[in-house]
């Protein structure tokens, strides 16, 4: 049994700024059936190895532009739709990034399409290695 792929297996890595590891990033696809404006993203709640990441430390990059989750609330331009079937890159600010070796990530993708009586909350789990 093999379900469809959510995460890009090549997308997990630490990110550096000014020569220092300041966080990590991953790429995953929207668990919905159409592209969306970033304004309907309610949350991307990241838990890494059991540690919950504060909302303000999570950033989403779409089409070369990076937005905090707070900024996503007003992003409605067609240029920055999260397209169906395409990876969005999530960057997590975390001093020192992730240690070499295996990790487990669990992300709640929470979006609110206008017509749905209840929002969509997709739990996306993966094991990966740095």
């Amino acid at each position, binding site marked *: 049994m093999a379900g469809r792929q959510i995460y890009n297996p090549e997308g997990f890595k630490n990110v550096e700024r000014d020569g220092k590891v300041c966080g990590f990033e991953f790429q995953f696809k929207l668990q919905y059936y159409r592209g969306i404006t970033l304004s309907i993203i309610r949350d991307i709640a990241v838990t890494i190895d059991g540690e919950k990441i504060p909302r303000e430390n999570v950033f989403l990059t779409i089409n070369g532009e990076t937005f905090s989750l707070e900024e996503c609330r007003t992003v409605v331009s067609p240029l920055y739709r999260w397209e169906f079937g395409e990876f969005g890159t999530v960057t997590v600010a975390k001093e020192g990034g992730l240690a070499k070796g295996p990790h487990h990530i669990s992300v709640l993708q929470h979006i609110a*399409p206008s017509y749905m009586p209840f929002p969509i909350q997709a739990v996306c789990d993966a094991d990966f290695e740095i």
Partner: protein
Amino acid sequence: MSQIKRSVSLYSYQDSYYCGKLDLEGCLRETSKTGATGVELLAETMIKQFPNPIYTEEFQARWKEWLKKYNLTPTCYDAFLENHIYDNRTLSLGEQVEMMKRDLKCASILGFSCIRTLVSTPIDVIEGSLDYAEEVGVKIGLEVHAPFSLNSTWAEGYLNRLSGSASKYNYFAFIPDMGIFCKRVPDVLEDKWRRKGAQQKFIDMVNEAYADRVANGFTKIEYSLNLGEANMNYRNANGQARLTEIFKAEGASPADFGYLNASYTYSWSDPQDLIDNIDRICHTHGKCYNTHEDYVETAVAIPEVVEAYKKCGYDGYISTEYEGGEHLRDDFEVPDIEQVRRHQEALRRAIEG
């Protein structure tokens, strides 16, 4: 000979598209291979940077070329009316009408004769867009999707406001989704919850309760701008709360409750509803969940629906909308191309038979 025509909604190929197996042109090619002559598009799913490309000559030329190459007629454009595009307010009526007009315009550019608008669309927004719909010659089709139904106070609410002698009222219509004609819960749903741990005893109770609702008739959902509340009222009026209490008393597991709750997203209407409303039907969603090798759909009453349409001389499209993938994709590869092929063949047999 029946004049009912066959179309495919590209919603059906979402899993192949998601995985990169099909692009937009690939979806059109597969549609053509099934023998369908019509295509239904979700622009927001398969046109990147929507709606910008639709306004360009380059995309318009490519779209026309594809339609010609694959011998397809554009049937329906699925609009979404994102009226909560900001989280702190609902768009004003004016903004919503503007959005509806944008979709009517896009549909018109791409050659569609109707748009699908969702069950959540406020009546005022349709009313405010009808002059423009008439101007561009594109009908606004309100989807009648489970748990909603024709011949209900919900549908009457729209009809009462959107009927009249003015010619613009000819541009309001219904798009029944065949998911409202589910005789039973799809087998792929039952199988999914069984994989998650639902026990046969509770599965049987859910299925029996569904059969009772089909036999005795569903209590219908009311028109409301508060969808969550309307939905819960509808579910409880149809026995969800009562069944939940029984499950609790008998020690049901979370998976048992999962199947119970999911079963309430399906519903049954009498196909006679189609005949009663035939003058107001511009298009039809051929919802399907699992069509077997013998071309029998697990839940949807295809023969009964097609029979009703034949009786009243429906000459529009039935557009395959395969949705079974949502119950498979966590565990298996979704056979969407094969499922669409089978469903088209099931439709062909019912229409030509």
